[in-house]
């Protein structure tokens, strides 16, 4: 067994906000002897355990699977959604990517449609309402159809699945200088609009989802590309072009 790697000492500046009505403030914490093998969330767990022992309120943050697939976790780390590690959720970000004695700023997603619930937890129900606005797709219910009854081109199937990997974490909104939810909405629109099953309601779905996105108070897209750069699933920018195309078609 190799000798255990030396622990890291970190200074965290964390956004603390008691509730939706609280004004909130940045609070500085010192965390010592952090293993480089810890994930970012485990590092916060260590700090929270200490805060609880000291009788303080632990830092609230969203998390669930901690495998990078559920979309629950997410915080802006040093000004970058999910931290600077590319294509990585916060739970899969490891402390070895940070320098010893680093100062790390941790903030919640900042967007009016994502109100802070507590500390680093934001309410992302706006995303659910965009999905709901998309409505249904017309598929015959009953026994499973033959796999080859509706042919789908390989390229289309791949692109649809790539779009469907969106976990709805909201990093795109957090990173966008305009606070736009275009990448999320476009990913959801794309994974249906590329498949035959999504064709009957394709245009009306795009229109309804874009209008819901605007109604929630998200900003407009100016094609900065910041969203796709921080997206843990690497959803490409051409999904937004497809959304615009479908929306224009529906608006004619």
């Amino acid at each position, binding site marked *: 067994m190799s000798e255990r790697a030396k622990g890291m000492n970190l200074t965290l500046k964390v956004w603390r906000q008691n509730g939706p009505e609280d004004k909130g403030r940045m609070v500085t914490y010192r965390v010592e002897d952090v293993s480089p093998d810890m994930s970012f969330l485990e590092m916060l767990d260590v700090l929270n355990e200490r805060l609880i022992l000291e009788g303080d309120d632990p830092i609230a943050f969203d998390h669930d699977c901690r495998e990078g697939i559920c979309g629950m976790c997410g915080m802006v780390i040093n000004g970058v959604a999910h931290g600077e590690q590319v294509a990585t959720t916060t739970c899969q970000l490891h402390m070895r990517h940070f320098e010893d004695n680093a100062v790390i700023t941790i903030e919640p997603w*900042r967007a009016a449609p994502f109100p802070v619930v507590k500390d680093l937890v934001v309410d992302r129900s706006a995303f659910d309402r965009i999905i709901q606005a998309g409505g249904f797709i017309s598929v015959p219910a009953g026994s499973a159809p033959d796999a080859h009854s509706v042919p789908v081109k390989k390229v289309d199937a791949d692109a649809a699945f790539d779009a469907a990997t969106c976990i709805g974490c909201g990093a795109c909104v957090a990173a966008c200088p305009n606070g736009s939810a275009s990448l999320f909405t476009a990913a959801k629109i794309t994974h249906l609009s590329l498949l035959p099953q999504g064709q009957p309601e394709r245009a009306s779905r795009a229109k309804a989802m874009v209008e819901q996105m605007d109604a929630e108070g998200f900003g407009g897209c100016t094609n*900065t590309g910041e969203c*796709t*750069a921080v997206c843990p699933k690497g959803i490409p920018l051409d999904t937004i072009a497809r959304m615009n*195309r479908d929306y224009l078609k529906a608006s004619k």
Partner: protein
Amino acid sequence: MAVTGAVLVLFLVGHMVGNLKAFLGADSFNEYASFLRTMGEPLLTYRVALTLVEVVLGVCIVLHMWSAISLARRAGKARPVKYAARRKSQANGYAVHTMRYGGVIILLFVIYHLLDLTFGTVNPAGWDGTPYERLVEGFAPGRWWVTLFYVVAVVMVGLHLRHGLWSAFQTLGLASGRSYRPLKLTAAAISAVLVLGFLVVPVAVMIGVIK
């Protein structure tokens, strides 16, 4: 944003090509300037076609600004609480972050440019000079600061188009997976050609190639 921008880009291409007439001498340049006013004759009377172009451009500029302002206002409303940490741009592309303030600089430049070479208000040759005289006296070596201002503003236009050109295709849904590379390269090439084409005239006047 995309449609009005496209109209303005088409205008810039024509404007740049026309400017290069300055290298063919005073007569060629002045003749071109008078052609712009007699364009469409005898079907249209003097300056009708040019006025129509000016109206279309004016409307495009206003609509382009209106789109930009509403986008900026929506962006402000969508993020009422700012980030404490300085946000680092993760996407590659410096030009994109110059669009808003760059647009304001370009607007101020256009106003000065019209006062300078169209109305002659701030030009030594004034309203009574020929277009060529206004050009040569406006960019005279003694007025190097005017040329400098033009250089800064035109480079700003170049950065604006660097992002704006491919962005228009994206907004109109005309871009797709494989087209981004060629689109962005074309945007960069057109921006570079426009910047060089526009700057070569004032610089040539300043260093005495055109006199």
